[in-house]
């Protein structure tokens, strides 16, 4: 096995073994740095609260080492850690979903937020909360998941015309999203005001009160679809050059696009089911990553994922501490911070061209 470097890229060759791949050293470095930020975000997030715990004690407690007065274990591992973990994982899932959609549609504005996937989840969840207030809150995540997947399936079906076109997917998604939000508005208008408030908090996205019961059902989706998305990143590079070029490069365009789309939808649906519709993460994280490591999806996807994780956990931290004891849902924070940044990015890319 040998490796060679030039210009920030390393090539790993397997010697006799039949493999070789390039690693973008810069992407590796950025990924590690973002991981550290996300982990630091978790530690600080767990430490902050009505009962403050020093960061070192937090780390010790998470690792199972007795720290402080020994009562930390319950606060850290049972109450606060799952919430911080959910924040990171939701960010990761949304960011990957957004990166894939932006790559597939070759449009920097595409995201599950606008192709109706979030709106479908929102409609299902709000309907359940408002129209059936007696149903346990435990059914909200599955309902949201079903809503997201149903819209995505309908979208693919309607956009299929002897083949799928990324442009039709986006446009029809916008239409379906508008329809779904009209009905969500109907629910909001006629619901009991208490339930409507609850539904709105869910609609902006919040990780408030999430426990291990939310972490465990979320994990399998990540374990299946994140590797699938990474495996597809190669094809994403090819598809990004246009269908004809991708075909010329030997990609099974429809199959690869189908798999990538499925991963994107599954990740977005699982994230939305867990934390509600946290806005603008799926938009912004891929852009940040592209600024940091460039457009190659091999490095872009993991970097965007970590950026997304860091964004949501920090947003949750800000939302918890800024106006404490009043908590702001992290979805509001991501929207308020993410939206101007997003506009600024667009302004810059527009001027560069």
């Amino acid at each position, binding site marked *: 096995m040998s490796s060679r470097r030039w210009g920030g890229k390393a090539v790993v060759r397997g010697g006799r073994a039949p493999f070789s791949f390039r690693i973008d050293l810069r992407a590796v470095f950025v990924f590690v740095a973002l991981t550290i930020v996300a982990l630091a975000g978790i530690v600080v997030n767990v430490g902050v609260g009505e009962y403050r715990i020093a960061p070192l004690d937090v780390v010790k407690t998470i690792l199972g080492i007795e720290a402080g007065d020994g009562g930390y274990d319950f606060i850290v591992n049972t109450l606060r850690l799952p919430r911080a973990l959910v924040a990171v994982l939701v960010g990761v899932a949304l960011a990957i979903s957004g990166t894939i959609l932006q790559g597939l549609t070759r449009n920097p*504005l595409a995201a599950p937020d606008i192709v109706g996937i979030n709106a479908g989840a929102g409609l299902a969840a709000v309907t359940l909360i408002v129209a059936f207030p007696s149903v346990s809150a435990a059914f909200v995540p599955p309902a949201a998941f079903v809503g997201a997947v149903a819209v995505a399936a309908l979208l693919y079906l309607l956009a299929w015309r002897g083949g799928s076109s990324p442009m039709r997917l986006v*446009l029809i998604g*916008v239409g379906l999203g508008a329809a779904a939000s009209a009905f969500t508005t109907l629910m909001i208008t006629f619901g009991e005001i208490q339930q409507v408030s609850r539904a709105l908090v869910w609609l902006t996205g919040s990780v408030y009160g999430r426990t291990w019961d939310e972490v465990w059902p979320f994990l399998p989706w990540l374990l299946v679809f994140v590797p699938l998305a990474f495996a597809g990143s190669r094809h994403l590079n090819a598809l990004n050059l246009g269908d004809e070029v991708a075909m010329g490069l030997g990609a099974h365009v429809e199959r690869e696009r189908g798999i990538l789309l499925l991963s994107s939808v599954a990740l977005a649906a699982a994230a939305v089911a867990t934390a509600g519709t946290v806005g*603008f993460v799926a938009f912004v994280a891929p852009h940040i990553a592209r600024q940091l490591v460039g457009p190659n999806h091999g490095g872009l996807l993991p970097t965007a994922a970590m950026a997304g994780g860091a964004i949501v956990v920090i947003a949750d931290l800000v939302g918890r501490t800024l106006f404490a004891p009043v908590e702001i849902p992290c979805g509001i924070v991501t929207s308020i911070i993410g939206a101007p940044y997003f506009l600024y990015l667009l302004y810059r890319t527009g001027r560069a061209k």
Partner: protein
Amino acid sequence: MRLLRSRALLLAGLLACGALLVLCLLASVRFGAARIGTWEVISAFTDYGGSEEDLIIRTLRVPRALIAALVGASLAVAGAIMQGLTRNPLADPGILGIEAGAALAVVGSVFLFGVSSLSTYALFAFLGGGVAAGAVYGLGSLGHGGMTPIKLTIAGAALAALFSSLTTAMLILNQQTLEEIRFWLAGSVAGRDLGLLLQVLPYMLAGLLLSLALSRQITTLSLGDDVAAGLGQKTGRVKALAAVGVVLLAGSSVAIAGPIGFIGLVIPHVVRFFVGVDYRWILPYSVFLGAILLVSADIAARVALRPQELPVGVMTALVGAPFFVYLARWRVKR
């Protein structure tokens, strides 16, 4: 190309639309939650006695029908102009985020300054709608290849998502604002009295007149900027004036009825099927057909689940969303 081929037919069609609108208005006054007979409706005008029925007719139903007609007409004309100006078959004040921008500005004014009068709503609605229109147009024109339908639509949807998440944020932080404004947010023409209409009417009429005056120029522009410039048109000035018209129309509609989607999308397409590509006919037809659509959607919203009332915005979405999907699937070329 078009169904009505001669000038006489076009005029006759316009008259027929006018007659149909009058019928719809009468039906809107006649039907409602309270069952009132036709004769009582007539007597409310001829022989006003101050009875309960007379009051319902005069203070509730007539203003409501008029508001629905004016809002429908304004939205349809705004949509037609946007489609012509951007050469984008999917343009609509709702889809392109103008209504969401106006709604955000109104909710913001209630939340931050405690505004509660409709005339101030209108001011903020114009402001928000104008900013949103500029932002969407700017964002949609960035990058290679200038403005394309897909870029414009995505920019509009993205900004609409942004505006509505900010709107939701404010509603979460303040339940009282939510209570005050949620019915308005769904888009409805119920419970507005004539005074409210009169406050917004000048802006609406100004927008309509400005648009109709520009119809010839918009026809030329819809052939392409180069063609219009080649024919000696000052394209920048026409576009700016047309944009002012769109913001006046969409802003005043949102101010009085809340965000009502899809009318601006559907009507111009239906109209073009009948009258072709000349905006001197498209705009007047849009006025009538937009009014007819919203008035009849409002009747349906009242009668469908009587006595419970649906927001009319939901009814128009019910018709409009499938139409949008149809357009995106069959009518948009790559």
